[in-house]
């Protein structure tokens, strides 16, 4: 991090982790280390495990003993959630919003990053600065005018009213991550493509886009997770329950059925599953993306 800590530097050789793992000089840990690790794990997973198990208990069980295993296991809560139309509608809306956000961010982002990375032209750095400065403006600051703008555009209660602003606010980070990634692809590729008669646009489609897959997946995953979890903008823009996303659904279910603790636990647990599965599948991408964005 001796250089300004902006961007991942894909050009820099990164030592493989497997190579490092057995190089640590100060080896394993004694019982104390494992004990600390166990405490950390328990504290971290306890709320999630409690929610999952609580969903299998009845309210009477929960009231009688807040801690404890389901006895007997009750499937009604989960069955109720899975058979409710509103749960599936929330999930569908969340999926739509997240997919649109991700596709728009990835496509517009890689398009904008391409000339910034590989063209020589006057004002290039000024143009790049526009995206960098965009990082300075978090959605929270603009939320009131954004809400009014979405209303004026007649996009309230539409997936676009959430997806497009979210994509816009995710673009700066995307361009900042993708630009050095594209710039690091070897110059020879471009020359070879030109010799074979490809135009710059042809090069973009046939060579650069396929090669930028890993970078695109990273920014895409980050955008997807951010959109999937988003609450503030959907809260203002999606007032119609039929248009609401999963976080809004969880919040309104939990206040509507506040007395039905077991039901709320089941609903929240199921709402966690897509995020958890996605996280486990994309774990390395998310981690690399975040570390890359910060570390350089």
């Amino acid at each position, binding site marked *: 991090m001796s250089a*300004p800590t902006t961007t991942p530097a894909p050009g820099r050789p990164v030592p493989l982790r497997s190579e*490092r793992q057995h190089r640590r000089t100060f080896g394993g*840990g004694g019982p104390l280390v494992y004990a600390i690790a166990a405490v950390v794990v328990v504290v971290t997973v306890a709320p999630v495990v409690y929610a999952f198990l609580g969903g299998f208990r009845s309210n009477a069980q929960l009231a009688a003993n807040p*801690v404890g295993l389901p006895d007997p296991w009750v499937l009604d809560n989960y069955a109720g959630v899975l058979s409710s139309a509103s749960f599936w509608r929330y999930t569908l809306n969340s999926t739509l919003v997240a997919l649109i956000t991700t596709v728009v961010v990835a496509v517009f982002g890689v398009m904008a990053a391409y000339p910034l990375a590989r063209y020589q032209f006057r004002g290039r750095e000024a143009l790049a600065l526009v995206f960098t400065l965009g990082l300075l*403006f978090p959605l929270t600051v603009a939320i009131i005018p954004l809400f009014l703008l979405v209303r004026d555009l007649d996009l309230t209660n539409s997936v676009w009213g959430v997806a497009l602003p979210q994509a*816009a606010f995710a673009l700066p980070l995307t361009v900042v991550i993708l630009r050095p990634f594209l710039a690091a692809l070897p110059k020879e590729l471009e020359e070879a493509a030109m010799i074979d008669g490809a135009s710059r646009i042809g090069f973009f489609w046939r060579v650069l886009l396929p090669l930028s897959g890993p970078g695109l997946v990273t920014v895409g995953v980050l955008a997807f997770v951010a959109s999937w*979890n988003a609450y503030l903008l959907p809260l203002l823009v999606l007032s119609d329950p039929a248009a609401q996303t999963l976080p809004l659904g969880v919040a309104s279910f939990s206040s509507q059925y506040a007395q039905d603790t077991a039901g709320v636990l089941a609903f929240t647990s199921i709402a966690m599953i897509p995020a958890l599965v996605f996280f486990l599948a994309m774990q390395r991408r998310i981690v690399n993306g975040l570390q890359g964005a910060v570390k350089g």
Partner: protein
Amino acid sequence: MTARTTGADVAATARATSGAADRDTRSAAPARRSASGGGRRLSSGARKRLEIAFFTAPALVLLALFVVVPVLQAVRYSVFDWNGLGPLDDFVGLDNYARALRDTVFTGAVVNNFIIIALSILIQLPLGLAIALLLNREIRGRAFLRVVIFMPYVLAEVVAGVVWVLLLQPNGLVDAVVEGVGLGGLTQLWLGDPEIALGTVMVVLTWKYLGLAVLLFLAGLQGVPEDVYEAAQLDGASWWQVQRRITIPLLGPTIRTWGFLSMIGSLQLFDMVWILTGGGPANSTVTMAIYLVDQGTNRGLYGYASAVAVLLFAISLVLAVLYQYLVLRRDNEGAPAARKVTR
């Protein structure tokens, strides 16, 4: 999530790119003169311009429409008394700002934000560092531990918040655990007592965001060259001496970057607090973002809420610049790693 990542690098990049922009303009000036003389190059130049426009236009339009325009609008609305519906004609100058600064709920929110910034760093830095150093050892199940510790960060704030509300309710899991370890007398209305609600919120925030600190510190630890450890071990240094004298100082830049992310995230804090307490009880946990959403959407005071948004942005910007100037600056000069080892 991205919002947290984003702020980090802004000022550094802004400085780096503006430097590059200066160079660019200087070198481009003569080139332009010669280019305008040669008509032959103009057509390929024009084509290139078109391509650049084609590639960048979609992103720029989206950015202008949904980022630049709303931010400028916020500034404009902030000098009007406006309910968001009628014409924008009741110009009040800086009254909204004056009113916000006089409102004890808003100033209380600012104080809360600062408390959250300070406590986040004071709690998560030592904890995150300890866990990262622990995970950096060769212990069994390290990969599993890493996934587990980072998991809360990936869950939606709302989902995690709803679960925590249930855990913290009277006779919930937290009360049961507190009683279980023999401290039954200490059970509280965790989220209902103005005296302790902010503390409870801090515990939940630590649970939610500690994973990011651990993750970033681990990434920083991977960058510490192994020969340093070997040399220290040859010199007879203990594990703790190595951590204290070598590893932690070398982790400095990562820690400072994380501190920046944490600070910006604390300033923007909304989702989790909104779910846990909604800013209450008695405004004891209200943050600037909560206050602005409440004033804007719940009370329809759009002009006033916009002034609050501008104040929030101004405070964030000042803190970001100060942090960049006072803390991050030393990461950008010279060879920090070498300097820190010898220090």
